[in-house]
């Protein structure tokens, strides 16, 4: 299993922190800001013609002689979509793909425990394999099994994937994307479109040690594992220039936090437990 049972037990303590997203079709365990059918009492309200008789508090009517309705906090579920990058750039460093799957699984477990619907998919330039939305804690085994299978190699086209994702998923929810985001297409625009459609987005950027701190000390021809593209680089100051470029790229991704996107850069140097309990908490994704 990609997540140990001890770690799953620790995850029991966590819950997702979500804003705005809710599912009005199915009741769930997540409180909504609207009042209606639910278990948790909220307040009384005078009866108005047309109100549901089932919520009339008859004992209060017996004492006061007036009809009052009992108001409950209506509880909804949220659809959690786990989108894991399955391109060649992720599987090139196996620890990277494994960490991405583990983080997605952690999200899935926390969500399933809260009775949210969880779907998972591997993407390259399209959705390659998909696990339809499931609800309920027992579904965790199917989710872990799905994520454990690993990605199929291919090229990344995140903008295309997100565009199609938005087309097929009209109802907003939480979208967790685990990827390195090494992608030419204009996916930030697609993310902004999803945010505008009331999606909550969590971007988990997974980088390997070689990508975070490359050792480049001689002139090289770098070959892209996905496209086979060759890039000539000189050794002089390359490590520093790469570090600057990576920081600029991460600042570009972090800039999307301005409109509510969660951005969590992680490295394969870190343990999945440390990432979930420290980085996810710091970002306010879980509590």
């Amino acid at each position: 299993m990609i997540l140990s049972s001890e770690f799953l037990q620790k995850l029991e303590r966590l819950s997702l922190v979500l804003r705005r997203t809710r599912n009005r079709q199915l009741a769930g365990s997540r409180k909504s800001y609207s009042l209606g059918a639910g278990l948790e009492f909220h307040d009384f309200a005078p009866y108005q013609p047309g109100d549901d008789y089932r919520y009339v508090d008859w004992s209060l009517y017996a004492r006061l002689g007036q009809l009052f309705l009992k108001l409950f906090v209506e509880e909804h579920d949220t659809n959690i979509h786990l989108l894991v990058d399955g391109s060649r750039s992720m599987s090139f460093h196996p620890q990277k793909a494994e960490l991405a799957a583990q983080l997605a699984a952690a999200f899935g477990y926390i969500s399933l425990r809260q009775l949210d619907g969880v779907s998972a998919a591997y993407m390259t330039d399209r959705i390659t394999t998909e696990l339809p939305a499931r609800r309920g804690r027992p579904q965790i085994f199917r989710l872990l099994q799905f994520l454990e299978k690993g990605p199929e190699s291919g090229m990344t086209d995140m903008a295309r994937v997100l565009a199609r994702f938005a087309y097929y998923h009209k109802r907003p929810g939480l979208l967790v994307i685990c990827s390195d985001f090494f992608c030419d297409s204009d996916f930030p625009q697609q993310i902004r479109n999803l945010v505008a459609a009331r999606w909550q987005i969590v971007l988990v950027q997974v980088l390997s040690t070689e990508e975070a701190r490359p050792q480049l000390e001689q002139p090289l021809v770098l070959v892209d594992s996905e496209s086979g593209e060759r890039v000539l680089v000189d050794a002089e100051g390359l490590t520093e220039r790469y570090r600057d470029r990576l920081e600029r790229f991460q600042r570009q991704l972090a800039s999307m936090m301005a409109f509510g996107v969660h951005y969590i850069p992680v490295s394969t140097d870190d343990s999945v437990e440390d990432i979930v309990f420290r980085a996810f908490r710091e970002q306010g994704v879980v509590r």
Partner: protein
Amino acid sequence: MIEFANTAAAGLFAALIIIIILHLLLQRREERVVSSTYLFRELTAVSSQLNRRLRLRFSWLLLAQLLAAAFLVMAVMQPDAFGLFGGERTVVVVDASASMQAEDVTPNRFGEAVSQAQDYVSERSGQDTAVLAAAAEPTVVQGFTSDAQRLRTALDGMAPSEQTVDMEAALRVAQAMIGHGHAGRIVVFTDASFEGASMDLESPLEVVTVGQSSDNVGIVGLDAVPAGRSQFDVMARIGNFSGESKTVGAVLDSAGGTAADKSVTLEAGEIREVFFQLEVDGRQEFVLSLESGGDLRLDDQVSLTLGLEERPRVLLVTPGNVFLERALLSYPDIRLFTRESVSEPQAYDLVVFDRVQPSAEVERAAYFNVLPPDLADSFGLQSQNRSLTVSSMDRTHRLFRFLNLGDLRASDYRTVERAGGIESLVDAGEGSVIAAYEDNDQRWVFVGFDLYDSNFPLSVDFPLFIGNVLEWLGPEAVEVGPVLSPEESDIGPRWDYTAEIEAPGAGRPAIEAARISLWPYVLFMTVLLIGAEWFLFDRSSGGKRSLRQ
């Protein structure tokens, strides 16, 4: 000390540059597959790629190849070590002076000297020996080598000169070649027909003399002067260097046959002038020959060319000067043109400027009390407003030939600085009053006073001076071929070397194995390097050569 027998092979060091160029061209970047090149695309500019592509990077392979190539070239250059183990060096000096062409031995002294030197180096095969040619300047014919065949070939390629020998300089060079503190010897093959070359030599000197005869009569001087239109007085100096009285015939031949001949009897050691008068039509070539001239033929004939194709054109630029005009007109062998201003000076063989300043220099010119602006600036022309007092005079110059110039006066005068190639003929303390300048084809004469303010044109020297000026500035009417000096014609032995020499072969025995050929060791090093390079780079990479660092 290490010397290379085949220094020409040093050109093969250019191969090292080729290796470096090949490395520059072939050096490849290592390919490395990365997960994504997305972040790298901005990091490499095209200009950067091009600029840095030819930067040579340190490579052990390159170093190994350069070392292997360098050792290989050194092996081809055949390095020899000597002196390191106490070896002896010998310099063979062969006299290549003109007297060595005397034929008192067969084929001549030089041929005999070369033959004996070849025998000498053959006997010393395996020893360090160099060959030096002694003439007016010593020339190293072959550097130190133990290869007797190479030494013999170098000796075969030598030729005698027509110059006097400077044996002292040759011995000094020979000693320098041996070096201080090294065991060595100098062996001279010479006819010893030169005045002493005594000097302190660190190395022992051996002298092998070739030819002992002194039987020679030779032409040791020849000159001619015009003696009127189409006439020349020819003066030949003939010397008898043999030990007895000699009668020889001196014949002047031209293309048309014998022009003049005389029989001369000379006492032993006598040098006498013999005069001829010749009528010359235009420009004519003559050969003065001696009959029965003795063992050295080189000084028995001298060529002589007399006359001019046409009379030289002389331009006089003057506001009017009766002295100059009369003096110039007294020479019928010139065509005189008189102008008041300069026009087309290049159309004349020489130009005489009298108080008229030319705008530019003329190749052949006489300037009276004037200089072109450029020359005036260059040579510091200055007016001295006082009467002339001559401080010194150079009577040996050709321009002052036959002149007395005892009482030269001028009321005021001009001087030029005595520098920059100026020959001062008459000096007045502040500078030169009469000066001559000669540089390649350019010649000019400066007279720094107005002839009308001087007693010079009234003296008998003036027309003679003008004649000398015309001769010096005008086309050469007399050309004399090379003439041997009396010292070279005197082929008898004169060098008193007896106090310094040892008999040939009686010197110290040579130390065997003085020279060690290093090329086999260098070649071995080359093979080792190539083997190491193969093992480290080819074999370890499975036969696929890599330029990886």
